């Protein structure tokens, strides 16, 4: 029952939060759409919903709604640089296949 950040990712999130000036943490969610059925969403959190699950990872609060958590359990969120792009990458043990474009996945 965990969702975690790598240290590098946590540092980035803290930087982003500091620059933004407000927010209590990071919200991770799964939406149903896209080529392979499911897609990740990553948002700043200004407040937590009542039923959100809270995880603390390297000093950052992660909020996950219970429905999404079913698809995200065990996920590690990393911050990587690939060529000219950098961004967050989900390492999700539940994902069985991803669509070619990489925006969505299947379980």
């Amino acid at each position, binding site marked *: 029952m965990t969702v975690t950040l790598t240290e590098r990712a946590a540092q980035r999130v803290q930087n982003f939060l500091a620059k933004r000036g407000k927010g209590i943490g990071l919200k991770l969610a799964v*939406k149903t759409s896209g080529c392979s059925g499911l897609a990740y969403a990553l948002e700043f959190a200004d407040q937590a919903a009542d039923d959100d699950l809270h995880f603390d990872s390297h000093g950052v609060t992660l909020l996950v709604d219970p429905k999404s958590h079913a698809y995200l359990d065990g996920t590690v969120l990393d911050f990587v640089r690939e060529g000219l792009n950098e961004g*967050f990458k989900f390492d999700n043990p539940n994902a069985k296949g991803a669509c*070619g*474009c990489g925006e969505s996945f299947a379980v």
Partner: protein
Amino acid sequence: MALLHISEPGLAPAPHQRRLAVGIDLGTTHSLVACVQSGVARALEDADGRVLLPSVVHYQAEGPDHTGYEALACMAADPANTIASAKRLMGRALADLDRSAPWPYRLVDRSSQVAIDTVAGVLTPVEVGATLLAALKARAQAALDGDIEGAVITVPAYFDDAQRQATKDAARLAGLDVLRLINEPTAAAIAYGLDRGAEGLYAVYDLGGGTFDLSILQLMRGVFEVRATCGDAALGGDDFDARIADWVIEQCRLGDITLADRRRLLTAARCAKEALSEVDSVPVRVALATTEVALVLSRATFEALTGDLVQRTLAPVRKALRDVRLGVDAIQGVVLVGGATRMPQIRNAVAEFFGRAPLTDLDPDQVVALGAATQADLLVGNRASDGWLLLDVTPLSLGIETMGGLMERIIPRNATIPCARAQEFTTFKDGQTAMSLHVLQGERELVSDCRSLARFTLHGMPPMVAGAARIRVTFQIDADGLLSVAARELSSGVEAEIAVKPSYGLGDDEITRMLADSQQAAAEDMQQRMLREAEVDARRLLDATEAALAEDGEALLAPPERAHLRELMYRLAETLETCGPDDLAELKRATDALNRGSTEFAGRRMDASVRRAMTGQRVSALEGLF
């Protein structure tokens, strides 16, 4: 996996929506449609769970057309209005058809295309094809719950331009946007993922219901090229059924049977054939009009009955290999296509012939449609992140420089890629042993107005008279937009090649500018081109006359004749030196004058060379010659 960024609350972007694209195998006996879902190509079923749609349409005077199994059921009752095998008529003229086997329909000629006279009016094969495609489109829309954005349709590798165009027209009539037509064997190879595999040669063995095709494909830089096709248009799974039916007739001494009985026997034979792919022997029970037969058919008997049919498929295989001048060991993989290749004796014969087990993991009835679906998914842009940069068309024409500084187009603008085109060129000078090739991009007629991409030289050609050498220049653009140009002198086999990236460094703006220039300058360019061509002609004539004079001038021409010819040559050379863009007519006049003036000389040279060839020959030896 795409990289994500953090969004403001509630503003996370919705992932892009999937674009629906299907692959369609429009077959002679069966058609089907497939689509990539969750990364896997899958054939789509109709409401009754059937994948195959018999390629049959039944037309009525009033009321809707029937397709597929419904139409098949009308075949016996209304053969003249039940159209099967329309694919065989696609893009053909009435005169093209083999009329030895009678067609069960009233075929008529309509604007030099064959058409079928039915109760619903005169219909073209394109319209019949469109009815089938529309049925498959409706099936796909129901199964995928959305509009189909595009389709990849397969055609036999031997289809010519007219037949391919007819297939495209049928798709347009059915309201389908054709992303691309691909060859059936290529689709089968793609379904097995061979396009991502090792480069080399592959064989596709396609034994359908009524036709057999063998293709040899060469994979180079992600592009399949059909190297050879061979086949038998009257050999298929149906012949195996017929052998079983004949065997039953012989075993039970049925003698002459009615057409209805024969149809019943064939149906039973087909079931027995299919069962024998799984078990060693099957009971054959058929209730005929007057009697009932019950026999047991073993696989060994079946194999003995059909051994010659299996052997008949191997003859085209040998021929195809001979055509590409290769042995079986050059083939890296064999793909089986068509329901009839489920028969163990076929698989064994193919494995034995090629010395390797054929690829059989995918359903042989579906493999072509699955490959087409994979290609459609790629073309519509659902799969882009794995290193495939798919340029769809060439933005500008590609060609080489020819004499006179002219651009000769080999791949025209907007050609879909990957593609390969070849053209033959020849030498300009006697004894020329090398040829410099200048690869160009652009729409203008003159080399100086086009973009230079690369230069290379073909060395080591045998010396020949001007115009005798045959140099085949092949342009090939692979899926990555990489152009390779190869030149090969056909009699000696010497070759040279170079690879270039034509789109490199050209922005949209530059392409637009180059196109606009070519349109503005079109008239001027044509004028220039005609002038340059006339200059090249004039120079060639001068060179040839000069060479002829040096060789036979003394012997064959009287001094005044020689002087006259010299005078004409001098005049032409002078015009050539001084002519401007407006002197085209004058240049042509001077060329014509020399041409006419030297005709008599050329005739005498011909007579002289014939005399030389015959001198000292016996009449009997010459008789053998003529």
